[in-house]
């Protein structure tokens, strides 16, 4: 097992030696998957470093999460070592926490990879993260008349079915 994960471990070590304390957490999760966590503007440095060193051109997706501790985070998924000459790809989940729940802000990766625009707009619509530097953060998925400041994927937005469940639980307690 340890031998097969050598490539992944090398990437983590290179990142650690390059960025030092800027890398808050870094681990090899399993085969072909690396989890890294950094603070706000540093993710752009990690991305551009990976683009130079390993030609990491393939941004897979950008996810947004309302974490259990109430922090809103974005996760950039990209091939840190893209497939080349029959090799398998190694993909990285690069997590960045927003420091503020009421007005979460992150630096946009639009200038590095233009394709990030739509992924970031989706995260802005549904989770309310403002990506500074994205040229167009207008509504993409939600309807134009959807109320401002309501973000459906946050945990404090409850569906009817969730409200019913909560009410049932409270009844049982009584």
């Amino acid at each position: 097992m340890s031998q097969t994960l050598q490539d992944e471990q090398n990437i983590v070590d290179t990142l650690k030696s390059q960025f030092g304390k800027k890398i808050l957490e870094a681990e090899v999760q399993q085969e072909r998957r690396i989890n890294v966590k950094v603070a706000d503007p540093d993710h752009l440095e990690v991305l551009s470093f990976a683009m130079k060193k390993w030609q990491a051109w393939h941004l897979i997706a950008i996810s947004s999460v309302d974490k259990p501790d109430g922090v809103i985070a974005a996760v950039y998924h990209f091939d840190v070592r893209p497939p080349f000459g029959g090799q398998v790809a190694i993909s990285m989940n690069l997590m960045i926490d927003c420091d503020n729940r009421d007005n979460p802000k992150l630096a946009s990766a639009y200038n590095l990879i233009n394709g990030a625009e739509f992924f970031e707009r989706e995260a802005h619509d549904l989770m309310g993260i403002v990506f500074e530097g994205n040229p167009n953060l207008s509504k993409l998925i939600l309807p134009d008349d959807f109320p401002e400041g309501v973000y459906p994927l946050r945990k404090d937005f409850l569906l009817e079915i969730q409200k019913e469940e909560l009410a049932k639980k409270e009844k049982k307690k009584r």
Partner: protein
Amino acid sequence: MVDKKKIKVGSPQTGCSSCMPNTFEIPLGPQHPALKEPTHFLLEVEGEIIVNATPRIGYVHRGIEKLAETKTYSANLTLVERVCGICSHIHSISLANAAEGALALEGFEVPMRAQYIRTIVAELERIHSHILWLGVAAHEIGFDTLFMLSWRDRELTMDLLEDISGNRVNYAMNEIGGSRRDMNQSQIDRMLKYMDITIERMERYKDICLNENTIRMRTQEVGILLPQKARELCAVGPTARASGVAIDVRYDDPYSAYGEFRDIFNVVTYDSNDVFSLVVVRIIETIEACIYIKWMLKNIPDGPIFKKAPRKVPEAQILSRTEAPRGELIHYLWSNNTNKPYRLKITTPTLSNINTVSEMMKGDYLADSTITLASIDPCFSCEDRMITVVNNDRRKAKVETWSESQLRKYSNDWHTANKRWKK
């Protein structure tokens, strides 16, 4: 002749503020000529040439990601299959892989026979999706003979899928921990026979597409997407491969049974970078898919198809990558040691590819916009996924199952009763 005054159509929210003089804006959609699904493109045209295109999506937003947080994993497999009608199976593979990936951290393993069955169904799905697209594309360019012939041949695959799973769409083959249905020898024999016929038919369509002027004249040098742009705009799947960018998750990051035949796997690319290239890539991929199915059917191992998985999935953050017929599909699962996901993020290939359509349309004629849009095989149900319609009376809903003979009888009766309809 209209004078050189800028005329603005379109809603003020989507209107373009920096239009060049001498251009018009034409809103295309949500209901529009290219597709059955709703989407909106604001085209800026100069004469007949498209200068710019701005997409607006979200017309089929159903709240699936949010809804997934309220359901158990097993119920979620049923839910995510409804994300899309055509690439339904791949969504459930993706979620099952994510949950099993989290369980694998504690040593859980899925039986190999189940992985083979999943992969076979996924490849059958790719065949029917690609042939469906070929028909739609042929229809868009006015070549309706090919449309009808290709859809006739698609029925072979649909019959196989119905034979294995009992359904023509939403096959419900997966369960966390394995497959729900096995295959017997007669089904395998029938599949081998039908795959040979499909290969033969697709070889014929390959010939037609490479040599037939109707197709070449409508698709060559239309919708150009250069490799550099495809990389910048994060194109995936056949859209990227038709621009010569060799990415395919089945090869680059093998899941299910794809690791088993990686040495015979071909990443199909073509380098003319236009819609024609997309046609060729999809047809060759269909033939390849038939070959993989035949390989898997000959090498499928014996053994159990299901292993009971624990109901609670341990805490993990799993990125599950799969290759849907349209490109790379992502399920990013946050589990929290309960029987429901904490967060399930789905990113579908159309969201990655829709940006490239704007790029492909630039510089083309307005009349070509429909085939260019159809060329990425967009699937807007997949892409939007999301506001909830809860039917409070759903438990009272009456469900009737019709057998084939009943359906046939109903159809015959209807046609006898409505004879005038034929005239």
